[in-house]
C-alpha cells in the first residue's frame, strides 16, 4: 500500500517534470514563429512589469536600508565602515536584488498567471480557444514568458538601484558616511562579472516564474477549488525553484571562474 502510494507519487512527479520540460522547449521553439501575439505580449508587460514596479521598488529600497543597518554593526567591529557601499552594492546586485525581486514577482505574477489561466481552463475557455483555432501555448504562454523575461531584468536593475539608495540614506543619516564615500565604494566594487551575474539570474528566474504559473494554470482540475490549489502550488514551486536554481547558478559560475 505504502509502496504503491510512493510509486504513484513518484510517477506523478516525473510526469510533471516531463510536461514542464515540454512546455519550456515548445515555448522556446514556437516563441519566434508565427502567429505572434504582440499586443498580448505588450499587455502582459504592462500587467507583469509595470504593475509590479511599486512593490519591487519598495522592497528593494527597504532591503538596502536594513542591509546597511545590519552590516553597520559588523563593519564597526572591524573598523571598516567605509566599505558600507561595497557591501550593500555587492549583496544587492549579486543576490538580494535578483532573488527578492524574483520572489516578489513569483508571489504577484506566478500566482496571477496560474489563477487566470486556471480559471480559463475550468470554465472551458481554453478548450474554446483551441476549438476556435488558437494554440493556447502561443496565445497564453508565450506572451507571458516574453513579458516576464523582458521586464524582470529591468525591474531587478531598478530594485538594485533603489536598494543602494536605501543603503545610502541609512549610511548618510545613521552612519554619517559622506555621499562620495558611499557611492565611490559601491561603484568601484562592482565588476563586469558581478553585473552580468546579477542580470543572468533574473533572466532564468523569469522563465521559471512565468512557466510555473502557466504550467499550474494549464493543469488545473477540479473547478474553483482547483484554481486555488493551482495558485498556491505556483507560488510554492516558483519560490522553491528560484532559491534552488539561484544556488546552482552561483555554484556553476564560481566553478567556471566567472567571479
Amino acid at each position, binding site marked *: 500500500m505504502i509502496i504503491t502510494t510512493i510509486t504513484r507519487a513518484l510517477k506523478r512527479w516525473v510526469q510533471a517534470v516531463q510536461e514542464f520540460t515540454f512546455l519550456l522547449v515548445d515555448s522556446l521553439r514556437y516563441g519566434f514563429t508565427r502567429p505572434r501575439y504582440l499586443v498580448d505580449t505588450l499587455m502582459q508587460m504592462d500587467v507583469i512589469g509595470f504593475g509590479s514596479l511599486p512593490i519591487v521598488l519598495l522592497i528593494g529600497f527597504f532591503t538596502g536600508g536594513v542591509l546597511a543597518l545590519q552590516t553597520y554593526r559588523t563593519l564597526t567591529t572591524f573598523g571598516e565602515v567605509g566599505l558600507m557601499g561595497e557591501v550593500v552594492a555587492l549583496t544587492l546586485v549579486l543576490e538580494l536584488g535578483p532573488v527578492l525581486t524574483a520572489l516578489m514577482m513569483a508571489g504577484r505574477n506566478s500566482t496571477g498567471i496560474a489563477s487566470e489561466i486556471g480559471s480559463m481552463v475550468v470554465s472551458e475557455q481554453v*478548450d474554446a480557444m483551441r476549438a476556435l483555432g488558437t494554440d493556447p501555448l502561443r496565445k497564453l504562454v508565450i506572451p507571458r514568458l516574453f513579458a516576464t523575461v523582458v521586464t524582470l531584468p529591468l525591474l531587478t536593475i531598478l530594485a538594485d538601484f533603489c536598494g543602494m539608495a536605501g543603503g545610502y540614506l541609512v549610511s548618510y543619516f545613521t552612519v554619517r558616511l559622506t555621499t562620495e564615500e558611499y557611492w565611490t565604494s559601491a561603484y568601484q566594487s562592482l565588476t563586469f562579472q558581478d553585473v552580468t551575474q546579477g542580470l543572468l539570474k533574473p533572466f532564468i528566474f523569469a522563465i521559471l516564474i512565468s512557466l510555473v504559473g502557466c504550467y499550474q494554470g494549464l493543469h488545473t482540475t477540479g473547478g474553483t477549488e482547483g484554481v486555488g490549489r493551482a495558485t498556491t502550488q505556483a507560488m510554492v514551486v516558483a519560490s522553491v525553484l528560484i532559491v534552488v536554481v539561484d544556488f546552482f547558478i552561483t555554484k556553476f559560475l564560481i566553478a567556471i571562474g566567472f567571479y
Partner: protein
Amino acid sequence: MVNSEPGRGLTIHYSLFTISLTPNPEPLIPNPVSRVPSPESCMSAVPAIELRNVSLSFESKRVLTNVSFVLGAGETLILLGETGSGKSVLLKLMLGLLKPDGGQVLIEGQDLVPLSEARLQPLRQRMGIVFQEGALFDSLSVFDNVAYRLREEHLGDEAAIERRVREVLRFVEMEPAIEKMPSELSGGMRRRVAIARTIVSNPSIMLYDSPTGGLDPVTSFTINVLIAKLRDMQHVTSVVVTQRLQDAYELANYVFSAEKQTLVPLPQGSPATSRPPTRFLMLRDGGVYFDGSEQEFVHSPDPYLRKYLA
C-alpha cells in the same frame, strides 16, 4: 452547401465567407427559401462523423469503452446519458481536444487521432462547439468574442468583420448586446452569443454540450429554436448533448418555420423523409447502450430506457 469530400468543405465555407465581405454581401445566414439544399443532397457516402471502437481512460478510470457510431451529413444526433457517462468527453474527442487511447475518430472521412494540433486546425474550422456554460472569453466584449475567429484568421478588414459579427448576432437575436461584457449577460444570452461565435465561420458540423442546461423552459426553447434553425436552414450536422428529454423531442418532432420564426410541429402522419433526420444515442457506463431513431427509443421495452423515460 455541406460537402462530404474531405478538404472541400473548408474551401466552400471560405468562399461563402468571402461573399459576405463584399460591399453588397449576400447574407451568410442563407435565405431559407433560396439556399436550402435538399436533404438528399446533404446525405452522402462519407459520414460527417464516425467513431470506431473509441476507448478512453483517465488514469485508472475507464471513461469510454469501444464507442462506435456513424452520423451522416445533415443528421442530428441526440446524445443522452446519465451524468458522468462520458457525453462531454465524446464531444471533445470529436474536436480532437482529447485523444482516445484506442480507436478512430473520423470527421468527414479523415481520422483526427494521429493529427498534430496544427494539422487539426483545418478540421476544426469546419466544426463548432457550444460549451455547457458558453465558455465566452471573460475579458472580451460580445463583439470581440464573436469576432475572435475572424480576427485570428485575418478574414477581412475591421468593417467587414463588424458586418459579419452583426449579421450572426442578428441571427441569434443578440445584436443589442454587442457592446456588453459576458459578465453582464444571463445564462441564456451567453449560450446564444456562444452559438453566434461558433457559427461566425459557417461550420458544417455543430456540437452542443448541454446547451439548455440550467436554463428556464422559455430560454431553453429559444436555444432549441436556434439549433433547429441552423439545422433546417443550413443543414448543419448537429450533435446535441442533453439531459432534457423535452429538448430531444422538440428537435426530433419540430421544424423551424422561417415564416413564423419559431418551431412548428410536423403535421400528423407526415412521412419519415420529411422529418428532420434525428438519431438518439444513449451512453451508459462508457459504452453505447442505445443507438436508433426517436420512435425506437420511445417504444423500447428495455427496463433501463423505460426508467430513463419515466
